[in-house]
């Protein structure tokens, strides 16, 4: 925040100094000065924004969401549940580093924001104790019944995508 304010202050100072040092441009008259000056100021502001963030549009609220069951809310918030298992996706909507909104299944209420750490693929038969712990599942049996509930097959050739994440903030968002 401090860095951003400092940069903003420096930019304002440069712009004001620009008006002072380029006083000779006043001779062109007000209309030209307003149009050209406004365009110049906008270009400089956009250039600074682009130089700092690498994009012209602000990042804003996360557009991607991950949905969780009611039982998983606390686990996600406190970092006990570190991953979810889903069917392999061909699209890359969620990538490492993406900030996603964790939501309660079927609702729009945001639990917290999560940062995607990484994505891995594994055969369901290869899921080990560590993976199950990360998923917040106690045993293989529990996992099998959960996976079947989602309509997934437990064939040994079936593989899933493990999405690892970490909570960005602990407090609940209303």
């Amino acid at each position, binding site marked *: 925040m401090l860095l951003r304010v400092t940069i903003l202050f420096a930019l304002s100072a440069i712009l004001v100094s620009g008006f002072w*040092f*380029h006083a000779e441009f006043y001779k062109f008259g007000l209309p030209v000065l307003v149009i050209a000056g406004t365009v110049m100021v906008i270009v400089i502001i956009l250039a600074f924004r682009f*130089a700092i963030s*690498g994009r012209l549009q602000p990042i804003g609220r996360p557009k991607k969401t991950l949905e969780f069951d009611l039982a998983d809310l606390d686990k996600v918030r406190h970092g006990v549940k570190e991953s979810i298992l889903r069917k*392999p*996706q*061909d699209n*890359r909507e969620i*990538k*490492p*580093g993406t900030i996603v909104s964790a939501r309660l299944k079927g609702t729009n209420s945001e639990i917290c924001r999560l940062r995607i*750490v*990484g*994505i*891995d*693929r*594994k*055969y369901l*038969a*290869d899921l080990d104790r560590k993976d199950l712990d990360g998923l917040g599942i106690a045993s293989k049996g529990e996992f099998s019944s959960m996976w079947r509930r989602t309509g997934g097959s437990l064939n*040994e*050739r079936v*593989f899933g*995508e493990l999405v*690892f994440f970490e909570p960005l903030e602990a407090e609940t968002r209303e």
Partner: protein
Amino acid sequence: MTPESLLVLVISVLTSVVFLAGIVSLNSRRMKTLFIALHVLLLTANVSWLISREFGIAALDKAVLASTILVFPMTTVLILAFFHGPLFTGRVYLPLAIFLPSLGIIHLSGVEGWTSSNLYDHSAFAYYLVLCLAISLAESIAHWLKSSILHKEGYLLMLSLAILLATGPVYYQELKILNAGGLIGPNLGFPLFSSTVLMALLRADFPLVRLESKERLSRGASRFELETGRVHFATETRPKYLRSIFAEKVGNGRPGLLLTSQPSGRFQRKYRVKDAAFIEVSFRNGKHQINASDMSKIYFLIRDFVLIHKHSVVLVDAFSRLVCNNDLQSTKELISHARRLASRTGCTFIVPLSLVTGTERSLLIGTIDSVMEFPDVEKKVLEILDAHIGNLSRHLLRTYCKSKGTVLKDLTLEDIPDLAVWITSTLDTLGVYAGDNAILKNWKNESYRISLDLMSYYNSDLEEAQRLSTDPPVTTESLISQVVFGREKIPKTSVRELPHERTEREMREKLLYVFTKYFGEAGRFVLAREVKKLGKSLDKVSRADLTRLAERAQEAMMEFGEIVDIDSVRTDMRSRGCLMKDEIVGIAAEGV
């Protein structure tokens, strides 16, 4: 000290800080050298100006002038080396071509008496500066817009060039417009410029992976012949066969790089590979770890490795992790870079397509590449065992895995020799427990044949291994085993022979046919007896033995004739013996 000098001093200190940060954090030797060279010029320009201003040493203005001129070609060389490392390998004339005009301009500046304060007024330098910046900007913008791997690096370098341009010639012209004397000579934007350059370099920087130099000549024939200078794709559930190929290539003296998602120690123990570089593809960066989403680092790691180690072999074991942590475009770009590097350096890339969806597969490799297909090792082993011992096979295999502290799905090609020995000893022991010599003999025969079939699978070459998944042949050994065990149905066995083995098998089948033709059903037993008398087993009979075997077959026929005390039969048996001998000799002659 004047305020201007103080400002330049602060700028120089800041530049030095970036310089030191770069030295400490950069790993790539090439990039570090270029970064140091660039900073020597940056610091010389500002510090010389400061000293000449403070101590009135006019001669140092020449140093300011020369170093300011050289900053621009140096930046161009750094950017070109960053994006096109292989371009400079063995081509010294390229950096020379960039630097030579600058030496000419420095000479011209001495002749015409230029000073650092009016440097940008001279058209010769202006043209050269535009040329250098145009090349660098074109490269940076092209990578920023087109590349999905070096997109951010291109952006950062483009930004750094914009800073250099703004704080150099643009700043000078602006001062001229404003009629302000001020700070002409030193460059106030150097810390910002060098820090953006450093950020770009650090994004793609990974410790150089260099194997110890040693004798790396091929030490033996390879059973896995792979065309060099190509990217080979393969499908198998788990990349076991590919790991065996990699281990064999490295064992034969080729430098190897393995990008794996598993700890390297386990791999090294299993495949007995020591002389290869192992990099773990994980979710963080470390000394021997690389972040799966850092595609630029991965690209630079591979590029530097194959440029140092020509004719190396690279196994991208963790390809699925790269696929799911990056967009498909950047993975595709990595593959196309790998193709170019492979053809340039003669190295071989092996890429498993396990855990990759069909859509991704078609998007990533298209239709131009052939894909090798390997069956699962554990399934093939089960098939072989099924053919011999039926339903007992799975149980036996699980027992083996348990005794080795592993599970069935982790069975690899490298386990097969040990498994063959284990199965032989286990079945032999089971035979002893039966307490019957005939059963014991049958168990021994069976265990021997199992181990033969397993070793035949283990020794199968690449082409054979791929064909195993379709149309499995039946070997002589399996045929005989069915006769011994009295099974009617010929089970499928997946063992394939090498070409010379195939001719040997055909020869043995013909031999069996000749013996059965002359001795009837007893033919195979007579054959077994005569082969044993030669001191060999049936599967070891070679063409060289056939002449002796033909004589023995003739003698055997005559012996049978002597048993029958009828002259006409005896004469008939003698003539049949001669015919049989001729036929066997004929088989021997076929192979010559």
